[in-house]
């Protein structure tokens, strides 16, 4: 593999990691606040659909993005009402919302566009276009650094930059602000937050709000950046992979980026080299390379790469009075 191709593989990795990263950071807020979010998938899906539909209707991708975020937010709030206020089971709520998104996107999409749940193809200002960073073209021919800058770093859609810039921001919010301290506390021991005079319900809803917004960006990225329109089930399990990445990352933002990049890389490699020939002896079938992220997740969860300790109060509704 020559250098340029290596760079292009990484380039593809960045694009493919973006959705995972946004969803993973989204899940980080929810889970740090003590709420399991298996519904990342559904939130992304509903956002992908709404973003595509609104972008198509208005011709503005920004309107689409905003609408997608709103849709995802509504889903997050339903999850909040079920799991925070009504002490419902968080896994059940998440699974159900995933179903709901699968169904609603097609029912509504079909009713609107009669294209079997797809939205019409987005073009022009209804889609994000790539950003070329300054001097990208000028520097292209500089050896090594040139391709790294102009191929790998420059020339992505805006949301890719949003996702990667969000990582240090999330880190800072989590570990350097009052909100972050309270967020981490509420996932570890909600009654400590409660007796310290901070509303547990409020904190958890705030966390889910951020989860909703970030998932919304992730979904909008899928349908308006990576693709040009919504297709049925277009999230294709990425929400689950993001959740696995979150566990792998032990609920820490920088690690999350690493985990998502790893999964993105696996996907990029399986795209580029579907059948891997091992020294001409045998061929690893494409089904295997494509399944690698899932297998890897299981291996990681098997604790072969260190055990992950989740936030202590995760998954349990906070009940003061039984």
């Amino acid at each position, binding site marked *: 593999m020559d250098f340029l191709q290596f760079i292009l593989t990484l380039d593809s990795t960045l694009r493919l990691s973006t959705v995972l990263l946004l969803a993973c950071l989204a899940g980080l807020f929810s889970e740090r606040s003590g709420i399991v979010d298996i519904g990342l998938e559904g939130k992304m899906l509903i956002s992908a659909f709404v973003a595509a539909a609104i972008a198509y209707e208005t011709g503005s991708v920004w309107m689409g993005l905003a609408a997608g975020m709103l849709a995802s937010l509504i889903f997050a709030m339903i999850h909040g009402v079920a799991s925070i206020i009504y002490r419902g089971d968080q896994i059940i709520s998440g699974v159900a919302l995933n179903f709901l998104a699968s169904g609603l996107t097609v029912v509504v999409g079909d009713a609107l566009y009669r294209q079997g749940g797809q939205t019409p193809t987005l073009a022009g200002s209804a889609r994000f276009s790539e950003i070329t960073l300054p001097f990208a073209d000028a520097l292209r021919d500089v050896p090594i650094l040139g391709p790294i800058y102009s191929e790998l770093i420059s020339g992505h859609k805006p949301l890719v930059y949003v996702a990667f810039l969000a990582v240090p921001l999330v880190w800072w919010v989590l570990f350097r602000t009052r909100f972050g301290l309270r967020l981490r506390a509420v996932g570890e021991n909600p009654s400590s937050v409660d007796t310290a005079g901070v509303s547990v319900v409020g904190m958890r809803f705030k966390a889910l709000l951020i989860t909703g917004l970030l998932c919304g960006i992730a979904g909008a990225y899928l349908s308006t950046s990576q693709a040009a329109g919504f297709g049925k089930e277009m999230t294709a399990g990425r929400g689950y992979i993001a959740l696995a990445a979150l566990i792998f990352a032990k609920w820490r933002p920088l690690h999350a980026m690493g985990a998502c990049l790893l999964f993105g890389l696996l996907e990029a490699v399986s795209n580029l080299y*579907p059948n891997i020939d091992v020294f001409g002896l045998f061929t690893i079938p494409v089904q295997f390379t494509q399944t690698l992220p899932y297998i890897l997740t299981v291996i990681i969860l098997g604790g072969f790469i260190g055990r992950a300790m989740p936030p202590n109060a995760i998954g349990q509704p906070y009940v003061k009075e039984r």
Partner: protein
Amino acid sequence: DPAIIFDLGGKFDKSFNESAHNGAQRWAEETGESYNEFEIQSDAQREQAIRRFAENGNNPVVMAGFSWATPLAEAAGDYPDTKFVIIDGVVEAENVQSVLFAEEQGSYLVGMMAAMASESGTVGFIGGMDIPLIRNFACGYAQGVKAVNEDAEVIANMTGTTPAAWNDPVKGSELTRAQISQGADVVYAAAGGTGVGVLQTAADEGILSIGVDSNQNYLHPGQVLTSMMKRVDNVVYQSFMTGEDIETGGLRIMTLDNGGVGYALDENNAELVTDEMKAAVDEAAAAIAAGEISVHNYNSDESCPVMSF
């Protein structure tokens, strides 16, 4: 009334099913009559759908897609008075007409065009689900490419191995970028809904693409080199026209010769297809029709002389 059942992917896949849908629509518009249609959601519904139409009295019942073969074989015998047409599949029964397309022939032609349009000498193929049918597309395409340029390289990728592979434009897009990074400057998508992503990315990245099944040139005017036309629409149209008298119990093969396959030329790609290109392709088409050039059919021996999978 006649009826048509679409395959997974639905009638608006801009590709195979849409072509079938167009045929039915054309018939309805011309005759002013109506027909029934159904889009299945999963494989397990196939037999149920066939039976539902047969019991409803629809005749003939046309179904588009190779996956219908087994369920139709199961059900056809129970409805001797209903005529069935299956496209892309073979069912041996008294009341079934099986229609196959010589995809390798059409693909051969667009392969030639790809090779001529390519500057890098590397062209790409992106298939949907990895099945012999799609491999036949790839094989025909590669033969066409090699016929023009012996040294040209054909990069072939399949989107997946599940039916979801027909509907993953994001994956299609990434595969396209991957092929571009390997030097491809023309890509041929035979991937149903996934192809939408392929054509989109090719347009975004400024390379040429080739559509499939329906005429997809209009999707990105000036950026889609051509489309390999598989005239499913004609088959549906003709079947509906013939109605209950349709001849069954046999196999019908749609080739270049009888207009079953071909390539699309319209105002959207007029500037891309040079006269020289057109001449070469038309000549080859005539030669194939006359049997002077024989394009290898992957399905005949599950292998391809010019590429391996």
